């Protein structure tokens, strides 16, 4: 009973700090995931450009692909915590002691880190699309970018949604490493609270529940989005040959 009283005590005393931390965690994870996805889609489109016949363009393409590959390997191959320190203090060194605003730095770090993973996820998503979809689009004169934008990526995004949800959930949790540069996200604030009240276990129990609430909500919401993207599974046949006014409902016939 005492345990619950302590929990309630911590909540009623520090609820503002806890909520603020939750807000920043959610903001950084959400923006990081979305920007990361955009980076992934962009690299996906760029990496699949067909080899140009023009020698100069072909060299540019090679350089671009090399840069993307280096980016992916470096940001996947080093811990985000280390990236945060290098970027934050690297900037401070170059800018003569001026530091980046911590929230901005946090958004930036999570975004480019996620982008590296998303680049690979999107690449896999594009590869999962049947070659016929590309050919169908090319055969009516659509160029690479139109084909990707209108035909391939919408289908690829649908296919990679579970992996995107995964990244989002990982980001909610991993945003906690940004405490090393002083971003006041949930873990950082929990740590602050715990240094004030010395109730370490109780404080982190509350925080675990809060993290889980976030990840579970996101997981469910994205499942709903997945369902919505699957579309209706029935359609309306307008008219019929014998009776043009008739409207027949047809269930999916698969």
């Amino acid at each position, binding site marked *: 009973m005492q345990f619950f009283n302590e929990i309630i005590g911590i909540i009623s005393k520090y609820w503002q700090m806890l909520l603020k931390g939750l807000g920043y965690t959610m903001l950084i994870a959400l923006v990081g995931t979305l920007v990361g996805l955009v980076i992934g889609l962009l690299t996906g489109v760029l990496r699949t450009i067909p080899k140009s*016949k023009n020698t100069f363009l072909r060299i540019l393409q090679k350089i671009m692909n090399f840069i993307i590959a280096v980016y992916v390997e470096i940001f996947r191959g080093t811990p985000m915590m280390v990236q945060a320190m290098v970027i934050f203090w690297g900037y401070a060194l170059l800018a003569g002691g001026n530091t980046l605003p911590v929230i901005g730095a946090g958004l930036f770090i999570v975004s480019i880190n996620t982008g590296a993973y998303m680049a690979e996820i999107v690449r896999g998503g594009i590869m999962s699309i*049947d070659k*016929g*979809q590309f*050919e*169908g*689009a*090319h*055969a*009516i*004169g*659509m*160029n690479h970018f*139109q084909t990707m934008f*209108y*035909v391939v990526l*919408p*289908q690829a995004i*649908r296919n990679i949604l579970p992996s995107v949800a995964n990244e989002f959930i990982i980001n909610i949790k991993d945003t906690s490493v940004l405490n090393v540069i002083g971003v006041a996200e949930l873990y950082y604030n929990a740590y602050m609270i715990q240094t004030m009240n010395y109730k370490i276990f109780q404080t982190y129990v509350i925080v675990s529940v809060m993290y889980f609430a976030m990840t579970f909500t996101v997981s469910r919401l994205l499942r709903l989005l997945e369902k919505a993207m699957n*579309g209706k*599974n*029935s*359609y*309306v*046949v*307008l*008219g*019929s040959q014998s009776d043009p006014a008739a409207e027949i409902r*047809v269930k*999916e*016939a*698969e």
Partner: protein
Amino acid sequence: MADTVFEIRNLVKNFGSNEVLKGISATVKKGEVISVIGASGSGKSTFLRCLNLLEQPTSGSIEFEGNDILGKGFNVEAYRAKVGMVFQSFNLFNNMNVLKNCVLGQMKVLKRSKKEAEEVAMKYLSVVGMSAYVNARPAQLSGGQKQRVAIARALSMNPEVLLFDEPTSALDPEMVGEVLSVMRDLSKTGLTMITVTHEMQFAREVSSRVLFMDGGVIAEDALPEVIFTSPKEARTREFLTRVLEKRA
């Protein structure tokens, strides 16, 4: 000549060290309905895919209405809009309904307004008997229906030539007829058509000319009456005996 659509000279296509097309020359005139027949692996699909540049020819030349389509700076997208293609596997856009499938290319490539594109799409969906299914998604249609939509999508671009690569080979037998009947009607409209097919009866009755391909070359190029009753080449005769026996 003003009415020459394709002038193909010595077309060669290699896949690595595998020479698939070994020098194909042919002329296609406006309004011709050509069937391409031949054994599996003889290069029929590759030939067709070279015509709309889904495959890049290794050497040789292809002129479309007097323009070298392999030349530097040739606008491939604008060209493909004029040379439609219907695939064995339909290749409808899975993320769009029937109407959007027929509208997308018109709006993005031909820059037609949405309203005009939809009118054109509806016109050709009616031609193929699919106007009632505008809201359906490809996954909800039968093979024959999908192929008819694919034909409507190609027609919506108002192409000058339509290429068909075995348009009925992936269909259940009872659906072959509905697609062939659409194609039969099209062949009477003056549209230039080149069709790779295993439907010998269709080739015989509908085409104005038949190309028989064997081992990467056009072994015989003649009127359907000639090909099917008195082919000059022994290998044409052998091929036809083989496929017609299989039918019987």
